[in-house]
């Protein structure tokens, strides 16, 4: 059972990781916690479903189309709700994000009803399971894990090895200084929100297909856990978000399977608190330099 649960944990962790990447990127650049990110994940999932169900796209098309649509939405959210108050206290932005979150949840309820929607029979992906030595693994589980690792590597490459990546890091340090380098910081910020939102959409669709469900409030618990995962790994760090997601998924799954399912989420948060007490900047986070 242990290995099976481990696989289960890694799969959940993979979806946390994908969402956490968005949190981490936005935080890294604007130092704000985008509380609406979990709901962007939900909308992304719905948009994917919409593409396949209503527009009849095959999943290979629906994935990029929905991801782009979600990216546009993310960019729009930043424009409307965050940009006007970027210079204000970061708590103001956080509350604005909370407003966006409430708005998106209720918008989804108005658009798609309050109920749960299935992906099966719509996505065209059938779940196939493979059994190795009593451990069962499905094609989608493999997809979630592989995709999240690939996307992380890609993102890490973008941020650390490309010009736009350096510009992102410069913007994250000081928008004013970055502007004086000739960086179009608004565009960099939009780009960041776009990427983060697209990732959330992909996560939303993978989760939707794998667990075969999406509903308007699904972003709440995924968002919360992914946020915690991003912090656990060291917010602002891309490999950190990844690692945080997996650790979180594995810990909650093992805790639930060997101790108590009722306390499942408590294990996730307990590991977060314990790790932070010993590593205040998260597992891979860098301590901020504070030269006096």
């Amino acid at each position, binding site marked *: 059972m242990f290995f099976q*649960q481990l696989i*289960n944990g890694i799969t959940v962790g993979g979806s946390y990781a994908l969402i956490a990447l968005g949190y981490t990127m936005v935080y890294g650049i604007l130092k704000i916690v985008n509380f609406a990110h979990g709901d962007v994940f939900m909308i992304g999932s719905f948009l994917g479903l919409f593409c396949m169900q209503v527009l009849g796209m095959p999943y290979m098309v629906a994935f990029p189309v929905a991801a782009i649509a979600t990216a546009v939405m993310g960019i729009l959210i930043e424009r409307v709700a965050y940009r006007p108050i970027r210079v204000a206290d970061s708590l103001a932005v956080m509350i604005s994000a909370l407003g966006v979150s409430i708005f998106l949840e209720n918008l989804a*309820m108005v658009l798609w009803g309050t*109920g749960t929607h299935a992906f099966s029979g719509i996505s065209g992906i059938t779940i196939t399971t493979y059994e190795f030595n009593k451990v069962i693994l499905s094609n989608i589980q493999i997809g979630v894990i592989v995709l999240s690792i690939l996307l992380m590597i890609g993102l890490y490459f973008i941020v650390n090895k490309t010009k736009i990546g350096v510009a992102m890091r410069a913007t994250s340090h000081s928008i004013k200084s970055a502007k004086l380098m000739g960086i179009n910081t608004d565009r960099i910020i939009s780009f960041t929100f776009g990427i983060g939102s697209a990732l959330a959409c992909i996560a939303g669709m993978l989760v939707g297909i794998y667990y075969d469900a999406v509903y308007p*409030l699904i972003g709440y*618990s995924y968002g919360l856990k992914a946020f915690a995962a991003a912090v656990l790994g060291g917010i602002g760090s891309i490999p950190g978000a990844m690692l945080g997601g997996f650790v979180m998924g594995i810990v909650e799954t093992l805790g639930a*399977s060997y101790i108590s399912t009722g306390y*499942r989420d408590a294990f996730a948060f307990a590991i977060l608190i314990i790790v932070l007490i010993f590593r205040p900047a998260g597992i891979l986070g860098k301590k901020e330099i504070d030269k006096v």
Partner: protein
Amino acid sequence: KSDSIKIGVAIPLTGASAQDGEAIKNGVKLATKLINDQGGINGKKIELVVEDDKGDPSEAATVANKLAQDKDISAIVGHFNSSCTLAAAPIYNQVGVVHVSPGSSAAAVSKAGDYTFRVITTDAVQGSSLMNWAVKDLGYKNIAIVYENTDYGAGLAEVVSKAAGDLNTNIVAKEAYEVGSTDFSTVLTKIANSNADVIIVGGLYNETALIAKQKNNYGLSKMQIMGVDAIYSDALIKLGGAAVNGVKLTGYFSEVSKDPVTQNFVSKYKEAYNNTPSTYAAYGYDATLVIIDSIKKAGIDRKAIRDHMATIKDLKGATGSNSFDENGDVIKQPLRLVIQDGKFTITEK
């Protein structure tokens, strides 16, 4: 005074239980429409005052205060979640206005006060009836319980455990999940490693559908799933597809019931909303019928309504015939249902 009769409706329209609140609202509206189309009660039309309690007890208290103070409101349909009913009941009872819950099945509601009624039986009734079926008639020996970690799910799980104890069967797994969970891999892996031969779900249709579907990924495709009326909803079948065929449940409402009142409800409901009613829509309908009957007989005085309601015997509704005991709890016998070819059907086995 006014030429209409006001009935309050306090249900969750946003939040995790919104889907059920919506169903109840439809049921209540249908009952109201039917009576209004016949000219209302003594020439007075019924007017609904609908309030959202979000499924949150604090909010329920606010809503209860709002409805209770409105002297024009004769009676209230509500609340849905037991926790909300328990938070709101003291307020209604203090003011002295009847509320009929269409969904709160927790044991504690029995003692909530003289003005508290419900058209759903307590979990104990359905829980033991379900276990009798599972153990005595179907012969299951090892029971796994999967329940939502709410007042409802935990309460039902307790009732089921107790019934299992009385019947000398084993509970081999008892696993909780948070409402809205989509990942049941952990729970199902645990069950796959127990030697359970049936899963009793203490939760609602959405999660039940997911459990039914996901269980196939863990080598549990043959596993029987059983539940109570909370899973009776078209959504279960829509979401669960083929995976929910064979799911067995107890309940009071069935679309295919031969009962004319039920059939009338089903056909009118389909006509009005273009989809099939869930069990909660039916309860909402019945709660309204109970109130309408009381107003018809006793007028709009709040106390008089209560006094009449306490005496109601065998009032025919969509969920069977309603009679109340001294606690305001409804007395009725559950049906046995099974899903066959994507349809809820009545069964004897």
